[in-house]
């Protein structure tokens, strides 16, 4: 208080715009439009038998919680502490060294201290200490403990739906504390009270009932792909005839449903179709396992497992030998780190071997599922594709490492190798913003709704800032990636922070460069835009 009375008048006038110096525990969340997602609708929670299904709004005072909500949360924490050793470890071992503090894209872009990973974890740790440690029970606030009040619950909700589980912070943590897992636990606890967001709950319900996030039924999936076939014929003169739900195919192809409906993912999807056709691959699409993505993963461990089960079930039903997966981020985190233990062993499948090159994908020995970037890189390495990278000469491309594929499973070199072979102008973003240290798009883990656009712009700023740098320095005009959420959301991010930079999936660029047997001279790219220097003669 002393400073207040010794301050000069001009110093006092400065205070107007300074934030109040309150401790972090005493700053309840204010829900401002554009920074949070809508609450999960009752009908969507009902479909998957989740508790407290009702319509509610985060901005309203009353969240329509059950009377014993505190008991439910505390029981939920207790159960998870006994089930997951990692959670207890992460609650206990942080020494608050601050190594993670400035590594989060949400903190870097928002300047909100509660987006420092250490503080975001502290939101849950403070409750853990109060109810599950002797020091917290006795000393309370002094020991960093606090009561679980409704304001605290709202704060948990606000910030745990403001973390994209990208794990950049964990790369820098000397103890290896994985903030993504803390967020996962936080979201599980919130789901015990029906506190999901609708952008996650809707897709989860759809996926549970129809097999994909959009709720596309078999005929719609088939129609959608047929549209792409018409466009491919326009561009190449080649009529492709893929198969659906074909028993006895060698390979099942699974990709995120975002590729089926939203540009520019749709062009990536055309890329898959063209590549597989050119190879004469014995593969099939499935209208049941029609979703590689898994928004259950952003809900709870159990929900993710339920949604994931259909991939092996369909592989078994169709009698395929192995699976190729399309370009998606979190789908691969699930496949790589969870699918085998949840729904494996997939002993009815064979160890994947490329029918074109004979390469054994030993890394997929257990899951039997191969990433398409690995598959294509192997084709190129073995000289099996005829490519004309000059068709992408109008593009100056940079590569965005998607968090889940880069940090989650180490796919760093394969897409770069493919990219260097299909285009002539490739420029890396600065080292500290790519590979394991890549910055998130700011819209992952189901935060790719539109109502939280301001938050997305904050979260994606660090990524966009690096893109802007290569745009200004090298004239980069294309941001390539292997993630459906990236393709859907980076477009908006670029529009705000780095206009003139477009977004493409890797296999769109592959297909543009792919010289197909019997094709006509290409004058257009997959977007049906004229290829510079190769326009149709009048």
């Amino acid at each position, binding site marked *: 208080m002393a400073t207040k009375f010794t301050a000069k008048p*001009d110093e006092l006038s*400065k205070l*107007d*715009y*300074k*934030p109040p*110096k309150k401790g972090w525990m005493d700053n309840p969340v204010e829900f*401002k439009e*554009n*920074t949070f997602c809508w609450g999960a609708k009752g009908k969507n929670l009902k479909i998957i038998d989740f508790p407290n299904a009702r319509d509610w709004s985060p901005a309203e005072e009353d969240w329509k919680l059950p009377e014993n909500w505190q008991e439910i949360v505390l029981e939920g924490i207790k159960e998870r502490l006994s089930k997951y050793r990692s959670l207890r470890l992460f609650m206990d071992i942080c020494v608050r060294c601050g190594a993670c*503090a*400035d590594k989060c894209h949400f*903190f*870097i*872009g*928002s*300047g*909100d*201290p509660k987006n*420092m990973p250490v503080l975001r974890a502290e939101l849950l740790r403070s409750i853990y200490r109060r109810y599950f440690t002797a020091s917290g029970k006795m000393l309370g606030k002094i020991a960093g403990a606090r009561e679980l009040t409704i304001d605290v619950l709202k704060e948990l909700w606000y910030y745990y739906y403001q973390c994209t589980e990208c794990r950049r912070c964990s790369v820098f943590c000397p103890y290896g504390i994985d903030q993504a897992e803390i967020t996962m636990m936080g979201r599980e606890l919130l789901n015990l009270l029906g506190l999901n967001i609708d952008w996650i709950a809707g897709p989860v319900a759809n996926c549970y009932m129809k097999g994909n996030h959009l709720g596309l039924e078999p005929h*719609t999936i088939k*129609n*959608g792909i047929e*549209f792409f076939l*018409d*466009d491919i014929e*326009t561009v190449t003169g080649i009529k492709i005839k893929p198969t659906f739900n074909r028993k006895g195919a060698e390979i099942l192809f699974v990709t995120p449903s975002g590729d*089926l*409906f*939203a*540009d*520019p993912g*749709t062009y990536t999807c055309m890329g898959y179709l063209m590549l597989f056709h050119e190879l004469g691959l014995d593969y099939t699409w499935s209208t049941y396992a029609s979703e590689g993505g898994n928004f259950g993963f952003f809900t709870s461990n159990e929900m993710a497992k339920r949604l994931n089960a259909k991939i092996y079930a369909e592989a078994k039903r169709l009698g395929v030998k192995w699976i190729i997966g399309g370009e998606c981020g979190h789908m691969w985190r699930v496949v790589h780190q969870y699918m085998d233990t949840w729904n494996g062993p997939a002993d009815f499948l064979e160890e994947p071997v490329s029918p074109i090159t004979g390469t054994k994908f030993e890394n997929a020995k257990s899951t039997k599922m191969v990433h398409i970037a690995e598959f294509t890189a192997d084709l190129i390495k073995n000289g099996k594709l005829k490519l004309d990278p000059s068709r992408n000469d109008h593009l100056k491309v940079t590569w965005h490492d998607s968090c889940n594929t880069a940090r989650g499973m180490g796919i760093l070199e394969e897409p770069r190798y493919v990219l260097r072979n299909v285009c002539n102008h490739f420029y890396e973003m*600065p080292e*500290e*913003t790519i590979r394991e240290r890549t910055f998130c798009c700011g819209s992952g883990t189901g935060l790719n709704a*539109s*109502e939280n*656009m*301001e938050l997305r*712009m*904050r979260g994606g*700023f*660090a990524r966009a*800032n*690096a893109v802007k*740098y290569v745009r200004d320095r090298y004239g980069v005009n294309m941001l390539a990636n292997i993630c459906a959420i990236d393709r*859907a959301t980076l*477009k*908006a991010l670029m*529009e*705000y*922070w780095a206009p003139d930079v477009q977004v493409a999936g890797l296999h769109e660029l592959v297909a543009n460069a792919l010289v197909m047997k019997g094709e006509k001279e290409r004058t257009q790219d997959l*977007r*049906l835009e004229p290829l510079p220097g190769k326009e149709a003669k009048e």
Partner: protein
Amino acid sequence: MRLNSLLADKKASILGKWFDIIIESYPPDTSNFLKNQGSRFANPIGSTISQGIEDIFDELLRGPNPLQAEGKTSQFLDNIVRIRAVQDFTPSQALSFIFPLKRIIREELTVEIAGSRFSDEILAFESAIDNLALSAFDIYIKCREQIYEIKANESKSMTFRLLQMANLINDNNGHGPDSKENNNLKIKRGEVKK
């Protein structure tokens, strides 16, 4: 322009104070980070502000910008306002960073401007700062409008393919029903026309 050369001499000190005031509009834990981190990629807010205010100050010293006459705004100002337009600030808080420059200049030049020396030049310079604030207001509104526009466009492009699949629209590329009514729905493929 004797004032301008005085201001140019004091540039480092003026910018230092201006930077500190802007950074202090963030919570204390954050302002330490924004002040102390060097890399423009690890700390894009701090580095954009620090570089931006220097460029803005240089622009002010150069005098009226011919671009402003054409209604164009400073890119450096845009870089800073664009960030603050999506952060947790009210509109007035977001743009509050401009006005303290006046006070800092008067503090820095207390001796030199005593006895109404340079009063015309000071008035002109402060008017330029006022214009900067008006310009920042234009940028701020443009940024906010853009957020809503991006939201709307995102929803439209998400439904475009579904409408196309449902045979409800014609994209002038040969898909969809060939009716005049549908041709009026001028939605370009891959990008919704504004």
